[in-house]
């Protein structure tokens, strides 16, 4: 090989440069350390996928390489937390929330340790890597574990806000995050509070409740439908647990239809959580749960999958339109 590589060529360790969206996790953690919090981070051989290599460069003494050992990583983090140090440990959502689920239940949640679990590349964002790398069950497994908060930010800025908010939260948290290429919803001043939804739009006919990457598409869909004369609202339910019951119930009082959108199985995820609130309160609205309908995803590039499963703006709009006409 002679001469420079084509600008189109790339290699794994160059992901950060190619994808600045990965910076948000490290940025949030660096800010916590700068603010005086005794925070450390670890990853199971994926520091270039989750961008923690930036944190490791800034604070090499605060980064723990775990190798490919997710269960050990979670249990070690719990041991660290008993000593007053706050660990953030990260790996693909499919591995942390399924492979290490039992360690999360016993060592983190039941033991009430303020461990921060980062499940990145969640949903079907790993596209053609296939089912082993997809996580369409993680909301269901994590939110059914007692005392474990579940957070699904819409974009990097909201992730940073959630990390900042975590400093005042002494309980364990599961952060469900994307692959760092989520379309931007918030500016740098994004806010986050546990148990508080962010209402973007109010609608008289339909309210779309979304989380994660689906928020952007939900907003796109609502704006398009509203331009057609419909009245569609959008709520970002980044705090899946604790969930914002009041936001759900006031939206239900306003519009007779509600639709949830998530990059997750419709069983056990955001849609189920919203359904539980509506049923508990006898809210009497029609609910459409949209997401992956109890199947293993096909493989394809992520944007192709989002289009196929109607999780992008156009897809959400078409599902919502059908629902409005049903």
């Amino acid at each position, binding site marked *: 090989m002679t001469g420079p590589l084509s600008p189109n060529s790339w290699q794994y360790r160059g992901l950060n440069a190619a994808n600045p969206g990965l910076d948000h996790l490290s940025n949030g953690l660096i800010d916590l350390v700068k603010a005086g919090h005794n925070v450390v981070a670890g990853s199971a051989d994926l520091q270039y996928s989750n961008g923690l290599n930036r944190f490791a460069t800034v604070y090499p003494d605060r980064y723990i390489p775990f190798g490919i050992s997710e269960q050990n990583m979670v249990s*070690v983090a719990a041991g660290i937390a008993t000593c007053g140090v706050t660990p953030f440990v990260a790996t693909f959502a499919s591995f942390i929330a399924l492979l290490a689920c039992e360690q999360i239940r*016993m060592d983190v949640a039941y033991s009430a340790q303020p461990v921060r679990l980062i499940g990145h590349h969640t949903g079907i964002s790993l596209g053609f890597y296939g089912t082993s790398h997809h996580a369409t069950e993680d909301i269901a497994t994590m939110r059914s574990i007692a005392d474990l908060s579940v957070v699904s930010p819409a974009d990097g800025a909201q992730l940073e806000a959630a990390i900042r908010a975590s400093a005042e939260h002494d309980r364990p948290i599961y952060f469900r995050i994307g692959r760092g290429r989520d379309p931007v919803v918030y500016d740098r001043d994004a806010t986050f509070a546990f148990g508080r939804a962010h209402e973007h739009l109010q609608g008289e006919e339909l309210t779309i409740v979304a989380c994660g990457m689906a928020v952007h598409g939900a907003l796109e869909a609502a704006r398009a439908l509203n331009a057609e004369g419909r009245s569609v609202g959008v709520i970002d339910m980044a705090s899946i647990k604790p969930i914002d019951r009041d936001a759900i119930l006031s939206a239900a009082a306003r519009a007779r239809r509600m639709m949830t959108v998530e990059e997750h199985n419709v069983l056990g995820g955001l849609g189920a959580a919203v359904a539980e609130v509506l049923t508990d309160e006898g809210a009497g609205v029609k609910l459409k749960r949209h997401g992956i309908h109890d199947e293993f995803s096909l493989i394809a590039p992520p944007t192709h999958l989002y289009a196929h499963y109607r999780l992008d703006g156009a897809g959400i709009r078409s599902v919502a339109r059908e629902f409005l006409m049903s």
Partner: protein
Amino acid sequence: MALTTDTASAPKSNSFAPSEETVAMLKERARFIRLETIRLIEIAKTGHYTSVFSAAEIFSALYYDVMRLRRGEPGWSSRDRFTIGKGHAAVGLFPIYADLGFFPKEWLDGYTRLGSPLGDHPDMRKVPGVDFSSGSIGHALSNGLGMVLAQRWTGEDYKVFCMMGDGEMQEGQVWEAALCAARHGARNLIAIVDRNGYQLDGRVDDVMNIEPLDEKWRAFGWEVHTVDGHDVAATTELLRRVRADDDRQGPCCIIARTVKGKGVSYMETEPGWHLGYLDPSDAEAAIAEINAREA
């Protein structure tokens, strides 16, 4: 003395040998642990006698001699820590914690009863003195390793002892932690394998052979020692020595050769006693045998 060591750097002096008085005291505390275990299991009507009996001398040496602890201060931040993978032996630890003033002795009388903090497995949220909860086999070494790694960011200085069962060696997470501890030079981590030879389904070597165990730990980068876990003098001396060794650069594993059910003859030969219950009439004879053996 059934003590072997394979590291040139370990101190060779005999200054770690406990006095006769200390050995006598530790033997007496081991007997106390066995007798209290029988008393508490009488309340529950089911329990793991033999898992405690194989570890009684080790528990005694750790809590009454080797570990740096303060009576009545289970939350002291500089204390030595203890994590246990074979959490079903907690019934033998609770009497120690009460004895050390970590919680009122009256708690023992309600062992396993509705609302009691004391169950078959130890719960750090409910029981002062429990450094980490247990019940899921294979987690404890990772938990202990986390406590050692945390020293980098807290500046605290202590040792973490982690007891595991020999059947526990079949859990993959143990070996993830073993690799990780060596990688991070966890010199303050001391693992103890209670090599009592039995697991629920039978002899460990038959169910899923784990030998050569010493070579496995050594191959994972650990300093390895073997000791007769019922020889109080040898066990205490070894634990004191590895605790004091400031030259060791990585973690240390002690393989304690023990007898499951040690102290009650018929339990020593019948693996079914992993879980069981002694009617008071049978308990009386078991107590008599324990008292006679260690008199």
